[in-house]
């Protein structure tokens, strides 16, 4: 591929929305964080107390009943650990496939097989693939017929498609 190319800027759209809308989004989101902070306040204070000097000691906060918490969570934690072990096994198992750089390639689909599915002969399919602009009918069953109208033109820009008449 080409080297020394300039980087491409992501085509992100940031439309100018009304100030009230931006303010609403910010306030609501701030409120949501405060709500979560409120419900997690005991845990957050516990962590703060544990990490401040003297570090790794609880000074004012009371330690929760870890046994009770573990009793409640044990089943879910063990299930999660089991699933992590499961996906780790598959990651290990698939690493050769995922890290491969080349592999024998399957043969391409023959045009004849492709054309049959859509009710087209080889010649019709070949003609279709020459067209630059074309109009086609495709019925709900997937059968295709080509219309020779004013829009259709082939890769050379002529007015009509060369090749067999379709449909």
């Amino acid at each position, binding site marked *: 591929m080409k080297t020394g190319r300039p980087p491409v800027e992501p085509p992100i759209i940031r439309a100018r929305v009304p100030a009230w809308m931006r303010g609403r989004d910010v306030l609501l989101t701030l409120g949501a964080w405060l709500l979560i902070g409120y419900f997690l306040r005991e845990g957050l204070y516990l962590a703060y107390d544990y990490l401040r000097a003297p570090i790794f000691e609880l000074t004012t906060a009371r330690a929760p009943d870890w046994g009770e918490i573990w009793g409640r969570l044990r089943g879910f934690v063990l299930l999660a650990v089991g699933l992590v072990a499961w996906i780790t096994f598959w990651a290990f198992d698939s690493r050769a*496939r995922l890290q491969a750089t080349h*592999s024998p390639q399957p043969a391409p689909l023959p045009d004849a097989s492709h054309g049959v599915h859509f009710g087209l002969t080889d010649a019709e399919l070949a003609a279709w693939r020459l067209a630059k602009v074309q109009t086609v009918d495709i019925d709900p069953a997937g059968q295709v017929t080509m219309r020779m109208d004013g829009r259709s033109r082939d890769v050379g820009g002529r007015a009509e498609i060369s090749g067999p008449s379709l449909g």
Partner: protein
Amino acid sequence: MWDFLAPIVTGFTLGYPFVMAWYWMSGGILHRLVRGWNEPLPGEPPLLPSYPAVSILVPCHNEGSNIREVIAALDAVDYPDFEVIAINDGSRDETGTILDDLASQYARLRVVHLATNRGKALALNAGAAAARHEILVAIDGDSLLERDAVTWFVRRFLSDGTLGALTGNPRIRNRSSLLGRLQIGEYSAIVGLIKRAQTLFGCVFTVSGVVCAFRKRALHDGGWWSPVTLTDDVDMTWRIQIAGWTVAYEPKALCWILMPETLRGLWRQRLRWSEGGTQTVLRLTPRLFHRRLWRMWVVWFNYMVSVLWAYTMFAGFVVWCLRWKSLAPLVHYPAFSPVPQGWGALLTVTYLIQASVSLVLDRRFEQGILRLIVWQVWYPLFFWMVQALTSVVGAPRAILRLTRPSTGTWVSPDRGVR
């Protein structure tokens, strides 16, 4: 009996997202370690041993306001040999005229007009038949393919001859509103992590229809795109895997997409996804009875469990609302508050860890993405309920659709604030 069932329902409803969050996170991290550790950056693809020709399919329906930009982005794709086939599926706006005009400007562009509107699946079939090359890349008519995406797709196909399809990495363009910014995190934390984990496992639930690539042979073995499904991408992914091909995620194949930024648009989109997903899974279940397809059963099972979870979650929320109205004694079912207390707080923290992990993994693809963690707080508070509700509504509609098959049609989506 209810005394026995209530703790099971509570444990399942609260435990399922907790357990799966750690599973998806592990899958994402392991994918990075196994597949991505020594990988070049997305903007620096290595030289390939060969550059097989590629056809890029762009099905369009009423894309008059987007198509010029889409075709210009495709013309800038850095790949030696490719053609672009735009399929105008009976648009009622000026899409057809614009495409005819663009065909004179761009040598690589070819245009197929469908005489009548037939839906995305048949439009893709028509485009594939017109395509000259074995490898097909498909994007939506409002999406901008990144310059090197085709190279990354081809590199992956060359590395594994069993791959029948690849799913790319859709990145959200429109982020003017809270909903837009929220979905960026969702695409990383939910979609990206799940696809990474499923790639490691060897079975993917769906390619992203907005940016994906196929071998024609795999599409043929899968029976081509079906017009009777709402979500052609899920359907095609399953049928390709049933036919014996593998499907994988290529996160470096980037494509910039537009997403809804209104609640109505979001609801319609997610309901279609949910309904289409369930429809496909149910429709193809009879074809899964083969020992070779055991991996698909695992993905099938997880999907069904996620639908069941949506029902148990929604029922708990309804009970919580009734309790609020002092009707609790009438209902013997656990109540699930949308306010994150206790277990809810634990789930919220778990999700925020999941979002952080995914954004760290995805910062290679987008600078400054870590800042978006601020907005992700809404996902567990609001988005989970929307997702659950779409599953609750979508599942019966999908079952109904199985008994009354109809063809998929185009829906003009909400494309955000521009």
